[in-house]
């Protein structure tokens, strides 16, 4: 089936089997492998992208359902190459280890902060409940989102928990 959509600002037109999932269209047809697949049951959030302004798990949608949509994946988040504050927060506050959950986690955090610019720790934890991470225990993911939220409000981010210094 024919499907055309806009991904990271570029028009994409392709033919897919009707049962092709959006995540497979992104990864295998368009080569955007930053969006990951971590489960078969729409539970882990590794595949999260932003579709028409809302975060969606791209494994829960058929590619053809995205007909005409505007999709942003992790590859499209750094505008003009500059890191999005959420990406920066993950780097600054060690919000990732293996990095596999990270693209989905970052997209969910972007969605969360677009709805609530000053989330409490509890709101961050509840807001990211749909994204699983097996590496970080979420501790530094919360710190990363707090960092990004402050940055996006134009404030100084909270100090890191470790003493700053260089080796």
């Amino acid at each position: 089936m024919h499907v055309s959509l806009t991904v990271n600002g570029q028009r994409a037109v392709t033919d897919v089997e009707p049962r092709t999932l959006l995540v497979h269209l992104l990864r295998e047809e368009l080569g955007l492998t930053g969006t990951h697949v971590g489960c078969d049951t729409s539970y882990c959030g590794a595949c999260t992208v932003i579709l028409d302004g809302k975060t969606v798990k791209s494994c829960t949608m058929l590619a053809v359902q995205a007909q005409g949509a505007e999709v942003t994946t992790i590859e499209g988040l750094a505008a003009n190459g500059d890191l999005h504050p959420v990406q920066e927060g993950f780097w600054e506050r060690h919000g990732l280890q293996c990095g596999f959950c990270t693209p989905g986690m970052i997209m969910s955090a972007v969605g969360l902060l677009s709805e609530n610019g000053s989330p409490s720790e509890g709101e961050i934890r509840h807001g990211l409940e749909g994204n699983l991470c097996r590496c970080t225990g979420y501790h530094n993911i919360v710190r990363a989102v707090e960092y990004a939220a402050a940055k996006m409000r134009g404030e100084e981010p909270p100090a890191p928990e470790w003493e700053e210094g260089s080796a």
Partner: protein
Amino acid sequence: MGGGVGVSTTSVLGGVVKRREDPALIRGTGLYVDDLQLPGMLHVAFVRSPYAHARVVSVDASDAEAMDGVRAVYTAGDVAHLGDLVAQVPVGKVRPLLAGDKVNHLGEAVAMVVADTRYGARDAADAVDVEYDPLDPVIDLKEAASDAALVHDDMESNVLLAWEGGPWGDEEGIAATQQTIADAKAQDDTVSVSIEAVNQRLLPMPMEPRSVVADWNVGYGRFTVHSSTQIAHALAGGIAQTFGLSLTDVRCIAPEVGGGFGCKLNVYNDEILVCFASQQLGRPVKFTETRRDAAGSTIHGRGWVATATITGTRDGQILGYELDGIADMGAYSQNFTVAIPFLGLFVGAGQYEFPTHWKVACVHTHTMTTDAYRGAGRPEAAYYLERAIDAFAREIGVDPADVRRKNFIPAEKFPGAATHIGFPMDTGDYETNLDALLETAGYEDLKAERDRMRAEGRLVGLGLATYVEVCGFGPSALVDLGFSWASYKIPSGFNGSGLVRVQADGTASVIIGTGPSGQGHQTTWAQIVSNQLGIPVENIRVSHGDTAESPLGIGTFGSRSAAVDGSATYEAANKVRSKAADLAAHLLEASADDIVFADGGAHVAGSPDQQVSWSDIATLAYQPHRLPEGMEGGLEAHAVFSPGNATWPFGSHLALVEVDGDTGDVKLLRYIAMDDCGNVINPMIVDGQIHGGLAQGIGQAMFEDGDYEADGNLLKWSFVEYPLPTSADLPSFELHRTVTPTDINPLGVKGIGEAGTIGSAQTVVNAVVDALSPLGVTHVDMPLRPKRVWAAIQAAKTNGSVS
């Protein structure tokens, strides 16, 4: 976070450097195996057994083979010539590549389908018609240990062996220990307290499912295999061994690995089988697990039942500890399988000094193989010990911290202290660590707070536990105990390796024998080399995981990479430094002894204004005609580090919980950890490892349960039935440390990958039992899901033991 109270936080490197690996990962440009698409690549799906135990009557693949885009369907007979799967410790029944006339666990692979597309392979696998004749499975561990029915009818017993000590391997010594404990029990003034507990089976579940792509090049006679593995060199060796090739005929590449936690520390049958298919079909072949595949066919961890007994006096002196347990190996052995409980034996007596008789039997059942899952044997050992000590403390009415302190191996015994099995330990100072935890946490205030809330009728509990870990494997001499990688064509012991090369422009490439699955090697190793050479971290690139370029190393597991491969890299950097000093001396017309490395270059001591840069030094190295006679060109060095022992980190943890008496819901209010992993290279990365480790230990305590049903079914196919902790389930953690460097390696580092997991499950369970203790509850099995906790509360209430 900072150090504890009144303890040193100095370390050899010790600075936070933001991770070098992150820019790619946060932009989505990191390459994981499933991202790889090779021209002409085919896809694999497996036909898996829906029974725990059955005779395979027939396999009819004709419908599947007739489907469009299906290239081949393979069954056991097609791969019989390749033998069984490679295993390091091939005790018991080793896994066949594909099941033959019998299947022995749910999810066992019976046939492999290769097709043009991922979806097509799945469709064709569903079309393969297998006729089974179901048989009764052996699932229950005690039943398995009794040999009432055999798992494999060509074996004489389900029991493969028992790990027993201490001391280990000394029957007379063991008998003497047992006698000492029996005598203590017979004394009038002693108390014995036992708990029987399940340490349930867990599913490792890294977020990245395992994935492998094999590409046989018939012209070169060589495999190139990309795999999501923790052990690239062993995989290359295992493939070479299986196909009768040399190590140079197999190139394995582990690119980004999306978490491993031990489950990617096996060579899997699918990794061998995609190689076979690629060779047969002359095309690259990919297999990527579904989450369902991962649940049923990637190794599991834990799976023990045991009774732990403490005998001691009423003032808290422990006179004997006994553990009598059974550990589930599953239906087949894979890489380490029976060796996992052995790691538990090492630390069976934890931080303590008392007669210990520890015995765990390893049995086959009709379930998936167990092997290394984060902690691997050590969390189980620590769980039983620390649960039993708490039960004893409660029985005699002495504060659990005091009981522990009274029985520690005293700091004065180091160096020279040994475990209960007689294995020497490196360094330890347990009392300082525990005191630092209690002081930092405000233990006395927390107890008062708990008691105040209790008086209001709330179920609040404090849980304490200590642990000692054995990791940083080493020693090299494990080879002599039979633990080598010889069955993978690598007759190497538990060594490490590193190669440091200064490039012509003065930047450095570091190539290491091990590779990360999230631990940040690219950063930590750059820090080690930067520290020795003065080349800035951003000018150092660390690569790993490609067996064609990296020196032989056995991988990241057992919290060993920094201690062993990090030390090798440190030594390689020192060799480079020594040669660079000669080169700089030549440039500066000085003596090498007077050369100082600083500010990204070198100068003669006292003359910092006459500096040569690393690029000046390297340029000379690569223009050998300018060198003095006898000096070789080039500027690189390789080192192998052969550790004389494992390392022995330790720590103590404290949890505060509240239980909802109406629903059984457990809330983890605070979690405070005081870990000691020796010197710290990058505190940010070390803390991150502890965070993740804690989440997995707390996951076992509160959420995760991978146990099979009595009929051999595994109803844990997704994250719905097998809930991992989410961000909403966990608190922020409060981390602190003491620093007791090891003398086993030049960096003084011990390892931190597993400590969080080893220390935490019992800490949480002790807290919950403490919360319920006013009701008379003395034990609840993990995971502490609301239903189970609620049932324990109800049972205690009906027993009328409400105080």
